């Protein structure tokens, strides 16, 4: 029996496997973007808006910096056994002018990364949970 694929964090990204997007909000007054979604009061100190629209953020950007996790993080991280180290990228979205962290796809290590290189958003397994595969956004070199 095949497992069903579900988001690890529901509502934070679209589930279209071929072309996923992070879901953020944009202030209707000043145009600032927020991720995770902000829906209460705008954080731009010059703006007193409390109205936001949900938007799909750019799913491409450029590496601001990168690292890896050589050791298993503590809970709530759910590690495969044995633990497989993974790379992490901080990617700057050009249009939104914000940096978003995420794991880098399996098989790509820090030796394959460089500040400034283009990355795109993909969905990949974060962990298995019974008969479900929980997927999360990850960054993949273009």
């Amino acid at each position, binding site marked *: 029996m095949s497992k069903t694929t579900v988001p*690890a*964090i529901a509502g934070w990204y679209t589930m279209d496997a071929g072309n996923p997007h992070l879901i953020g909000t944009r202030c209707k007054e000043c145009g600032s973007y*927020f991720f995770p979604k902000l829906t209460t009061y705008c954080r731009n100190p010059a703006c007193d808006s409390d109205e936001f629209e949900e938007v799909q953020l750019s799913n491409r950007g450029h590496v*601001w910096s990168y690292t890896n*996790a050589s050791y298993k993080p503590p809970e709530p991280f759910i590690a495969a056994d044995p633990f497989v180290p993974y790379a992490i990228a901080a990617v700057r979205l050009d249009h939104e*002018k914000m940096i978003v962290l995420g794991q880098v796809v399996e098989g790509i290590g820090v030796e394959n990364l460089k500040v400034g290189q283009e990355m795109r958003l993909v969905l990949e397994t974060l962990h298995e949970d019974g008969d479900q595969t929980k997927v999360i956004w990850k960054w993949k070199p273009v």
Partner: protein
Amino acid sequence: MSQDIAILGVGMHPWGKWGRNFVEYGVAAARVALKDAGVAWKDIQFVSGAATMRCGYPGYVAGATFAQALGWNGCEVNTSYAACASGSQALAAARTKILSGQCDVALVIGADTTPKGFLAPAKGYRPEDPDWVRFYIGITNPTYFALYARRRIDVYGDTLEDFAAVKLKNAEHGSHNPNARYRKLFTREDVAASPMVADPLRLMDICATSDGGAAIIVSSLEYAKKIGKGNAPRIAAISTVTPAFANELVEMPDIATDSAAVVDARSFRAAVPAKAYEEAGVSPRDISLAEVYDLSTALELDWIEDLQLAPRGEAAKLLRAGDTRVGGRIPVNASGGLACFGEAVPAQALAQVCELTWQLRGQAEGRQVAHAKVGITANQGLFGHGSSVIVKK
């Protein structure tokens, strides 16, 4: 009217992993500071404590806890919590009391006992908590420092050897500091052999957490003169500014930065000392030495630039030229820094001021910075907390 206050006395309980109650470290540090100041405990009019979140209720009301342990003397108390800047905020509270004329002499104090193991977030499924989210997706504390460090390599051309050189320098400084936890010298080979935690940072590039306590006796300049300490070092500035939107760095525990789509991105780390310089009327060129928060070796290099002691991207040049070691042009972390102390959160910002005080008095035996006249501290912690203190002769 002068906005300065006098530092009459400083004291510390040595940093370590002693496993005792934090109150013990704080009281020990306070007793040393009182003796150093020549001020009797009964004469202290205000106790300003830096809180610890790791030791239960007594830690939340640290000012009163220390006052009780020293023996209730009827003075007023305060407790401040501001992550890594807690000590500086406690110091700022004392300065406000003194400069407003509500008290003449105060005791500022911070101490901590570290817990065993990881400080993991609360359990359950809690995507509304950014700290929970980042651990869930595999982003730990070293991730952030590694991202900053890697950027220095790719953008400025810093090397792993530079980061190791920071470690070696601070270990050399700390080997002469009786209050430091780690007093061992290291070689480049030792650092290279230490395991990679978050590329490019190895275990030896990242600071530990420690038990420790620090205390400072501060007073009005009039009070200092009255007790014959008119020449005591002075606190000329305390900056505790928050970030300004849009904060350019991705900071623990967030997984994304502010958007700079409509407002320019700004550096928080640079803003913290900038306010201190302005307040003290001091320029970066006037600085004799700096104590900075080296949570990682590479972060010390970032701080050197944020303090405007080197142009952006050029801190490693100073390091390579030996400028930042004791005996160099602008010594950084003459105490040994966090590399040799390990972080004791509520005590750390005060420990930085203790070191500057000893340096300005010419009492930093074995690590003395010649002709030290003006020193600056800098630190930054979670949730928009940071501080910078300027001490001058």
